[in-house]
């Protein structure tokens, strides 16, 4: 069998990595929410949630705030007949899917997405996907994954989706190493990264997921995986099982994160240190200049992260390392040591890491500490603002191109904006 391999980056020092675990009420989205960006990324895919009215309401509430055109996702809402076993689930799914395909004949992949109710009643969507695959062979790829809140949080939905796609990736027969970038990136970032890899001489790069359903990269022992997003633990492990090698590195947020990320790729592809510095010099220089221009108001400010998107630890590292902020408490829905080690190694020892959530006590700590900025979910931001605390709603960080050198200043700017707004407004009372 293939042995999972990890190539560690060389920044492993520092933080004692004590992660306190909390249990209780969580104010975090479920994995279904990932569909909001996945359906935009994979342009010929349709995501069909098999769930309840709550699932449909969640998706339009989380997404409807932002999108105005008809989505490429929908919900097959379970009714009493489905729950009582009176309706033949397979027949019902076939009918609903025919409706979807009639409306969207150009769909090339269909994702059946499990939800809390479908998991609890043990609806076998894997089986349904296989059956549907046989029925639509040649015209449609059908894949099932779970985005249920009892198993996944927020961005973990993408992890579950990509993990389930991995068995569909063809077996490669590469003689030389090939790079695979895993995790949804905006198109503009993907294009920038492609240009930088080409300049480094790494020509053979696949992005996963791709923009079209047929863009499935081949996997073999020559595959080197670099994660573009910090929430893809299951995907990374599944790729390792297919023989791929995981390159661990900090995530490409900020100048330092991006540098370390490209360095990890360069090492794995034996790019010389000279070549690496030569290629990165221009983007690094302009990015440092741009961040310095923007981040001034953040210097010396204190920031707390409430758990939300799983981006919390890399973002805290960026704010500390490049913007002069002090992260007080960094909450994250779950902590995956394999992916986070290179990140936490760079965090200050005084930063408290919390995995999971117990909402009311966590809010009490925010009220006590009164950080200059709290990064939190949409449901909590306005209540904290109303208490005179500045916030940054974290979902925006998932819907904005923030990775890479040329987005580093944009990323800093997202945190600066609430503070600048406070300076600017002469109405109402702040704290």
């Amino acid at each position, binding site marked *: 069998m293939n042995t999972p391999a990890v190539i560690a980056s060389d920044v492993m020092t520092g933080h004692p990595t004590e992660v306190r675990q909390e249990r209780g009420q969580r104010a975090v*989205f479920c994995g279904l929410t990932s569909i909001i960006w996945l359906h935009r990324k994979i342009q010929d895919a349709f995501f069909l949630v098999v769930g309840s*009215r709550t699932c449909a309401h969640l998706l339009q509430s989380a997404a*409807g705030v932002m999108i105005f055109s008809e989505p490429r996702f929908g919900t097959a*809402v379970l009714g009493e007949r489905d729950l009582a076993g009176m309706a033949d689930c397979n027949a019902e799914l076939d009918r609903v899917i025919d409706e979807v395909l009639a409306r969207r004949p150009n769909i090339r992949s269909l994702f059946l997405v499990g939800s809390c109710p479908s998991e609890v009643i043990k609806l076998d969507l894997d089986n349904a996907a296989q059956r549907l695959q046989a029925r639509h062979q040649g015209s449609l790829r059908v894949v099932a994954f779970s985005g249920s809140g*009892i198993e996944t949080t927020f961005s973990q939905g993408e992890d579950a989706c990509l993990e389930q796609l991995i068995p569909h990736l063809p077996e490669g027969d590469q003689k030389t190493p090939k790079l695979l970038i895993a995790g949804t990136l905006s198109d503009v970032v993907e294009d920038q990264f492609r240009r930088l890899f080409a300049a480094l001489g790494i020509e053979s790069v696949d992005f996963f997921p791709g923009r079209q359903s047929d863009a499935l990269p081949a996997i073999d022992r020559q595959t080197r995986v670099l994660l573009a997003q910090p929430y893809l633990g299951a995907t990374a492990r599944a790729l390792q099982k297919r023989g791929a090698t995981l390159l661990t590195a900090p995530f490409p947020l900020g100048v330092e994160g991006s540098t370390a990320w490209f360095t990890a790729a360069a090492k794995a592809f034996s790019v010389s240190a000279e070549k690496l510095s030569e290629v990165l010099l221009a983007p690094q220089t302009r990015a440092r200049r741009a961040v310095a221009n923007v981040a001034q108001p953040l210097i010396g400010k204190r920031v707390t992260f409430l758990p939300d998107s799983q981006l919390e630890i890399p973002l805290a590292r960026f704010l500390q390392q490049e913007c002069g902020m002090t992260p007080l408490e960094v909450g994250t829905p779950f902590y995956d040591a394999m992916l986070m080690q290179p990140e936490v190694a760079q965090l200050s020892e005084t930063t408290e890491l919390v995995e999971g959530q117990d909402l009311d006590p966590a809010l009490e700590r925010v009220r006590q500490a009164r950080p200059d900025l709290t990064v939190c979910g949409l449901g909590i931001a306005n209540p904290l603002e109303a208490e005179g605390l500045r916030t940054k709603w974290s979902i925006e960080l998932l819907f904005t191109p923030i990775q890479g050198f040329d987005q580093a200043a944009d990323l800093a700017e997202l945190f600066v904006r609430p503070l600048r707004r406070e300076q600017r407004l002469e109405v109402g009372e702040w704290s």
Partner: protein
Amino acid sequence: MELTLWTYEGPPHFGAIRVAASMEGVHLMLHSPQGDTYADLLFTMIERDGKRPPVTYSTFQARDLGGSTAELVTDTLKRAVEHHQPSVLLVADSCTAELIQDQPGTLALGADLGVPVIPLEMAAYSRKENWGASETFFQLTRGLLAASVPSASASRQPIGDRPPSVNILGPTKLGFRCRDDVIELEKLLNSVGVDVNVVAPLGASPRDLLELPHADANVCLYPEVAAMTCRWLERNFKQPTITTTPIGVAATRDFLAELSEKLGIELPETSWQDSHLPWYSRSVDSTYLTGKRVFIFGDATHAVAAARVANSELGFEVVGLGTYSREQARELRAAATELGLQPLITDNYLEVEAAVTALRPELVLGTQMERHIAKRLGIACAVISTPAHVQDYPARYSPQVGFEGANVLFDTLVHPLMMGLEEHLLGMFREDFEFNDGAAPSHLGEGGVVAERADVNGVDHSEDAGTPAWASCAEKELKKIPFFVRGKARRNTEQFAVAQGIATIDVETLYEAKAHFSR
């Protein structure tokens, strides 16, 4: 299973959250998995609430399901009461919790929490948001007042010399313009010498609900939320229910007439001049509004009210009327029948879209969903009902009820349309290069409503067998007809040609058909 792209209503437990969030001192323990807290953001983002709704979610996970989720419920209940110290605790299941049958209501009643507990049964797989709000408000009212119901033979105290008073029932958080409707209705009632006893659920505490029986009547402002409670109060406390929704000038006058009748007192006269709408509508400038084809869809209360205003106060022609509220479908059916229309009762967005596409109205009055539909079809649109977006929770005072509400409605319904003279000029000089069909009304600026008009009629132009062919000159002539009636003209002409046995439609056929149908 039912395919849903957008949903008009959330699940019933979301209705329970709306009632709890509207009130003071009420807390809800919702047995639910992670993710159901999305509900918070509707309050804090769409209505810009400065507080989280008063809900504690039990947040069970897959690993809890093997063991005892009941223990998690009991623990969550205790912590919720300790932390929030509510006057009343509501306890409910979300859709997933309903499947695992922990009976959190029963657990709460047996947990010695030191606070009144009202368990709710939310029926997640058969009911929806408004039913959930209605049921929650009813259970809360009944739970608090059941002990003080007088004997069936007791009669109400006559009003006598004291000023009469009413309760305003139904307004909630995330309802349509509830904040301003309450203010406007209080103003209206005070102007005729009627006091407001309690407004609920919005702004009420459990203590306020105990005061409900002191009013002489109940105004059932939004039957979606309050009808069940009003019926119960009428039965048990002999309080008559005022059922007219005072939206529009005529309905406001009817409301006052019903108030006078049910209270058995004379009320001061009102005048048509109390609202600007009657004169604005009669002024010659509004002539162009005559017979504008309007499609209306929303909750039953707002859809029925909008239909009456559109039809008899603005002179539009209502060509479609529907609602997603099955519980209030009867009222809407009656209104549709009166207008000679087939009512559309559905919660399926796709059916509404099909209806709008087929009817080709010039204006759509609806919810956020109809805004999507109208945008896609390039039709002017105004939002008159929930579900609504953040921009429909405006900063300015904009009630729907009463005389000021009628002013707001006049503006809301007229603003999206092209103004009269502009429309005439368009009709005359159809081929002007910058001032044409594809242009948005000039007061709406660039990129207004008319973004993607190309496909507006949604008609399949493929050559069906039996459909007469169009000569190119006739096609060209057809393009000179305004876009909003072009589809209808095409259909009528084809129908006429088939009836006359004409195989190819030319310009003559087009005008023959026009004359034939202009009756």
